[in-house]
């Protein structure tokens, strides 16, 4: 599987990372090397093997449906790039 710079740009867009033409070119070489390494996996037949997502065989704990966290809006918004009237500010998305 070989990538093109267009693939790199598409992946970068999906990842929401802006890349210049030069960066896409440089990234292409390195990503191709990494994907070449990953390709080694295909040599092993894994038919019928159950995927392992986690090392411990545990189930999700449940807790009482009770409020455990207090509102810390001011503290949390004090580190935000842009806020106004208790709201996070982002560029306009609805015309």
């Amino acid at each position, binding site marked *: 599987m070989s990538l093109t710079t267009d693939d*790199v740009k598409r*992946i*970068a*867009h*999906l*990842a*929401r*990372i*802006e*890349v210049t033409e030069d960066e896409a070119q440089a*990234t292409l070489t*390195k*990503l191709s*090397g*990494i*994907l*070449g*390494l*990953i*390709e*080694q*996996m*295909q040599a*092993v037949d*894994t038919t019928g*093997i*159950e*995927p*392992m*997502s*986690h*090392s*411990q065989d*545990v189930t*999700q*704990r449940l*807790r009482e449906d009770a409020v455990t966290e207090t509102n*810390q809006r001011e*503290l*949390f918004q*004090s*580190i*935000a*790039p*842009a806020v106004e009237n208790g709201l*996070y500010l*982002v*560029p*306009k*998305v609805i015309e």
Partner: protein
Amino acid sequence: MINASLKELAAALASKQISSVELTQLFLDRIVRLNPEINAYVTLDSDKSLAQAAAADALIAQGKAGPLTGIPVAQKDIFCAKGWRTTCGSKMLANFTAPYDAHIISQFDAAGAVNLGKTNMDEFAMGSSNETSFFGKVQNPWDRARVPGGSSGGSAAAVAARMAPAATGTDTGGSIRQPASLCGLSGLKPTYGVCSRYGMIAFASSLDQAGPMAKSAEDLALMMNVMAGFDSRDSTSLQREKEDYTRDLAKPLAGLRIGLPKEYFAEGLDAGVAKVVEEAIAQYRKLGAETVEISLPNTQLSIPVYYVLAPAEASSNLSRYDGVRYGHRAAEYTDLMDMYCKTRAEGFGAEVKRRIMVGTYVLSAGYYDAYYLKAQQLRRLIAQDFEQAFRQCDVIMGPAAPGTAFKAGEKTDDPVAMYLEDLYTIAVNLAGLPGMSVPAGFANGLPVGLQVIGNYFDEARMLNVGHAYQQVTDWHTRMPEGI
């Protein structure tokens, strides 16, 4: 005092030979002198550290001291500490002041330990040399032209240069054990789920685990007593009885069965490192242990498997850095999409971007089965290799890293060469097992670590294995020259 064990420091504090304020100041002075070159710390706050030390002195005076009360500990900058700048080695978080404490930080606070400062690291823990940090590379105190390893490179360099008695690290694919090996320290990655990940900035959540880095196995055991334990705020934290990790330190090793995986002594291992590791194993035989050859046949596959799973998890975890709620935001943009793309292009370094893109690619429509699912299936085979091996032995030994510390810049242009640094450590994370590196000697004048891999929850035995060796060797007490 700078080379004292944690137990010796606690005794000195208890006998009023030194106060915690004096001890903290002594290390802060060393940091001021050495850090401009070594760059092990990214954030210091001597007022906060000394205030904690004064509070510890009050506890000691009241006879309420625990084993770590008043002892300064360097914290990897991946742990959120309330009121401290917490950067994770990234421009993205260069101005982020944590609004809460990680569980690990709370545990050290409750034990009366002093936060000595936040240590440098590879950006978002992605690297094996500490060269991906936004805050610059870290020097290896044993040879300043060389890297300390990574990603917990700042913590490793801080303890190696005796700029801290002990430090915390995190290990996703070897980030405690490899720098411990390269800097001549003891370092332990516990069983997955033993130390809470709450407030520990996420890289690959199914692999990330916090652990201690210090001079000796005994020091590690004392730190584990503080760090380990159930925390309801981490959904993967395991509900287990509290253990005393020092309980088995003095046990004799007679009859211990050591498994030696033939794949860990094959091509790719530096001859000097191999010699040191074999000498260490010979020492274990003298201590009464038996060795048995074992096989971990899927060792080579652990690297490709890791470089699918870890980037996949990272691409998801790091999607939170969008410039909206905290962290860096680009100064200029045209619309929301442009803000996201520019913010992330500016905030992340090259290696982090590469891994996010690899993760995005392997998770993208049409490729999931070929990459992510395949990697998860192979992950099971790798875990089963260990399951088989532990039927024949109690612990597994081998090198922690394929070579000694390499020169800065040597592998930065070749990510794949850098990834091979973790050949002997990654499988342990994939299986969720505990792994440890202890100093075992020197090759070409540089430290070499012996890796000890244990079965699930067998940390106390591994620490026993490390401690017994350190009773008959002095590698763990060696200090670099010129510090």
